[in-house]
């Protein structure tokens, strides 16, 4: 029984890591700009597709394709902010909402047009399996978990320890006060979208290597990302980390010990129960 619980926890950690990265990207944008960036899932799939394309089209190894895809993610995020969201920044919230929906459809269409309808799996050479006293850990999953931890740590250090990070937090706390303190509020959204999209791209690469990328996968992922956001607490970085991990492990444990047919239902039921007890989410601030 203990081995089964540990195995299910390891299983859940890998997908939980992906949820954390998606949710961190979403929470960064939502916390600072108040935008529900629905296209985030489709854009992260674009990152996965791009990595696959760099590997199969240009023969690049995975280790070289990843930084290029991440850099492309930063650029793409900045472009999305400039071209899609900036024009409606001062308009009613519904405008940004409509832009987000339109952007989702557009990116899905672009993915379909350029990369086709077939599912693709990012090839890796990580095929070893480690057996630790009956608990098996595939090498690829181990790298995914470690990469997620590294990216989350880097993100936390950036936000907490750097001047730009402090400026981002300042804008999130109080935009007007940040302006008075000399923070450039035109550049901050560009940086936020760049970082958020790069995190999404990383998640897309992980999904592509662990599972597969196909049309529609990004939409499912963004729904889970928002669930994590709500579970952890809107706009809270630690909340996104905790929420993603909890959701991943809950799904795995629910499928293993209750029923695989209802694993999503059970995961969302847990979310609802948490919200009934803590409406602000696990680590969100009470209004």
């Amino acid at each position, binding site marked *: 029984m203990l081995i089964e619980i540990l195995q299910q926890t390891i*299983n859940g950690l890998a997908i939980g890591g992906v949820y954390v990265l998606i949710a961190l990207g979403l929470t960064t944008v939502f916390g600072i700009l108040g935008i529900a960036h629905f296209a985030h899932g489709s854009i992260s799939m674009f990152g996965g597709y791009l990595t696959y394309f760099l590997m199969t089209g240009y023969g690049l190894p995975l280790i070289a394709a990843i930084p290029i895809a991440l850099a492309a993610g930063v650029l793409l995020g900045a472009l999305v902010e400039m071209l899609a969201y900036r024009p409606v920044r001062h308009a009613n919230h519904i405008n940004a909402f409509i832009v987000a929906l339109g952007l989702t459809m557009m990116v899905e269409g672009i993915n379909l047009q350029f990369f086709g309808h077939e599912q693709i*799996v990012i090839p890796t050479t990580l095929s070893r399996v480690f057996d630790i006293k009956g608990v098996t850990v595939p090498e690829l999953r181990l790298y995914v978990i470690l990469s997620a931890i590294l990216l989350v740590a880097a993100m936390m250090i950036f936000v907490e320890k750097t001047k730009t990070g402090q400026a981002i937090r300042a804008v999130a706390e109080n935009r007007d006060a940040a302006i008075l303190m000399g923070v450039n509020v035109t550049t901050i959204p560009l940086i936020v979208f760049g970082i958020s999209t790069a995190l999404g791209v990383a998640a897309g690469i992980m999904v592509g290597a662990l599972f*597969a990328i196909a049309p529609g*996968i990004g939409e*499912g992922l963004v729904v889970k990302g928002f669930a994590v956001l709500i579970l952890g607490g809107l706009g809270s970085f630690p909340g996104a980390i905790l929420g993603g991990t909890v959701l991943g492990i809950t799904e*795995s444990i629910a499928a293993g010990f209750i029923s695989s*047919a209802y694993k999503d239902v059970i995961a969302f039921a847990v979310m609802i129960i948490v919200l009934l007890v803590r409406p602000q989410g696990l680590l969100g601030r009470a209004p």
Partner: protein
Amino acid sequence: MIIRTIAGAVALAISIAAGPGLAAEKKLAVGVADALTGGGAVYGLPQANAVKMAADEINAAGGIKVGADAYKIDVIAYDDKANPTEATNAVRKLIDRDGVKYVLGFCCSGSTSAVASFIAKEKAVMLVGNAAERSITTQKIPNLVRTRPPADYTGQAAGTFIARKGHKRVAVVGALEVGFYSQYVDAVEKELKKAGGEIVAREVFSLRDRDMTPQLTKIRALSPDALLVVGYVEPAAFVYRQSVELGINVPRYGFTSGSEEQFLRVTTSEQMEGVWDLRPTELTLLSASKNGIAYHENYARIFKASPSPSSPYAYDQLYALKAAIEAAGTVDNTEAVAKALRSLPVPPQVVMQYQPVDGKMFDENGQAYTSNGAFQWQKGKWVFVEDLPSDAKAYSLFLGTLK
């Protein structure tokens, strides 16, 4: 006025002179409703390709001959995304807007059942391919036939095969929310029980699931002596890959009908080694007839990819339709064509190895039967190992008793 009269006379003369020739160039629009995108596309797209390929072959050989006329086939294909609503819309569009009388394709059961529910009221003939839900041919729809046998027809044979291998505790993981997959498993279970065996777990995955480790971890803890995987190729491939990653070292059986190419997009050949696929004897080169080998070569040349094993169900639809139209002597009277389909011997051009019932390709239910086979993954390829025991006549009688 004089010029007009001369022009009219010339046109009339040309039309009289070229009369029989023009009649020979008639067009017959044939519709395809199938999953061209989305999860079902692994079956639907190769089916649509197969219909187009068959149409090109028939056209090149002079078309469908009805009396003095020869009809060239014009294929109109719509994407139903394996979705019931999309399928209904696609078929409505084919019938109402494009004036199509013959609709082919239909890879997936949910979307096919939706269309089957109203097709009896239409002056059209529906030819179903890979969709294996049993109820599609238990409704006695006179203008519907299906080339693929129902899932439980194959499941019964598969259960006997697994029981003969001596397995007593079989764990199942599959798309069990899909009717025909659960029918397959029910039939397997019945045969296992006869031999004193049992199914110890029925774990579920959905079409979009790619992480099966929770289900497989649960199964591993039950220590089964065999694993049975039933479902669409893509999730099934992940089950095979992840079962190896979790160290589940028992014989693995499946009901998936995926090609080598489709599996190798997800797994490695080593991870697939030894896996059995217990399914209708569909297209694999080692089990293929002359027609099958030619089909494989032509498909690979035209579409730059190997055909999926189930794609000839759709290819065969068009040859069956051609033979039925020619036998009925009409393209307009769909009732006569539907009747002709039910009394049709197996056309010589088909790829699958059909087991005719009373000498006919389709039985009274509109159902065709192929033999069932045990295929095993050996060094990167599906190898046909043996026929599975199947009795088409007995099953046909059983099917006729269902409503």
